[in-house]
């Protein structure tokens, strides 16, 4: 929300009991409720970018020699682990 063409709507200009709207954005990040976490085996990763292509929330981050995950936005769906041709990704259960 740092770069935005227009300021958020000024909700104080209208009654606060009309249509439910929000003008302060507090996103609920999937990382808060993920139950499985992807972990890359760097020895196996060949940077083919298949995980990067398939990730539905685009949380795959490129590193110098392997691909990693932004765990704030990763929802733990495991699609990357299923699709990885090198079987370099393993899903681990999050600690309680």
């Amino acid at each position, binding site marked *: 929300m740092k770069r935005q063409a*227009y300021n958020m709507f000024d909700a104080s200009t*209208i009654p606060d009991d*009309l249509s439910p*709207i929000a003008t302060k*954005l507090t996103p609920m990040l999937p990382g808060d409720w993920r139950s499985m976490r992807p972990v890359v085996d760097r020895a196996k990763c060949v940077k083919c970018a298949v995980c990067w292509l398939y990730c539905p929330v685009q949380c795959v981050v490129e590193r110098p020699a392997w691909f990693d995950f932004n765990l704030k936005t990763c929802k733990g769906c495991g699609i990357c682990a299923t699709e990885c041709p090198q079987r370099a990704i393993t899903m681990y259960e999050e600690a309680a």
Partner: protein
Amino acid sequence: MSAILKPKSKLIVCDGNEAAAWAVSLANVDMVAVYPITPQSSLVEYLAKFIADGRLGAELVDVEGEHSVLSVLQGACLAGARTYTASCGPGLAFMFEPYMRTPGLRLPLVMTIVTRDTLTPQSVWGGHQDAMSVREVGWIHMYCESVQEVLDTTIMAYKVAEHHDVMLPVNVNHDGNYLSFGAARCELPEQSDVSAFLGEKNVNWHVALDPQRPMAVDPLTGGAGGPGPSTFVRYRKGQCSGTQNALKVITEVHEQWGRCFGRYHAPLIESYRMDGAEYAIMTIGSMTGAAKDAVDEARERGDKVGLVKVKTYRPFPVQALAGALADVKAVGVVDRSVSFGWNCGPLFQDTIAAMYYTPRRIPAMSFIGGLAGADLTVGHFERVIRRTAELARDGQPAETVWLNEKD
């Protein structure tokens, strides 16, 4: 005649579906999304024709079903468009999910329900069961008595819906078969007069899909333990006040319509020959014409009967009705639909609740008729009047009477 007519009014002969389409055209609607269903189909055919002919400059969206109809219109309304659709029966049922969301979003959509009895038994004929089944969702419901009232009310509906103290969707209901296909004389107001009456539209000043005014529309309120439920209550109460404000706004808009176009329709309820009435019958929708004839005949015989017609059904005009019925000894309520859990008509149910606000207990009886397109004739209303007169004498209400049971 020329003394009554405004000089610029044009006379046409049309049915209720065409009258509604004319009203939509005169209201300069921006977007129409439709899916045809009997007995509404000819209404959307008229609209498609008006758009094809260039008379109405609206976008027509032929969607794949009623669920999409209302979803499309919600988006259009959030983007600032004046919107319209019409449906009924099973179509209205398929529309129910977005239908529930519309009033809470405070979107001033206008939709005609060409009323039809609900399945099952299989029926494509008129009855109020579809509209009555959605009476508690939060839309404003107005029932029309005549073709002219369909046209006038559909235009007025936009002014009511878009009023800043209301901001709610409006259903304008007209009886399937009797009003949808019954042709009558109709005065067509001039475009410039209607545009002046409705004024500038501003339907998304409070909630919008607008890149220049970023906002999140309808975000999830939190659950128990946080501020979520109290936020929810604030919006619910706001919706209730908007609905109650509509009683005043509907009355004002009808008066303004009368001043501009010379036709004064009763906004909430109409009291007909209620002066000195000892007992009253109540009606809703197109059945009222035959009922008024029956009341006239009874009055000529010396029976002191009057009639109260309900036009605005949601919000229910509780105080107006309690006032109108305060002095009668008995009330007979005629419904064109059924409240299954109460074994009576829904209007009857609302009426006995409203009569709680009268100083005395007034005996009342429920009559159900006109289901599945059955005609409610003067003869049927004579029976209602006779039975209500009996009730006024003995004060002993009986079980619900099914008027067309032995037709």
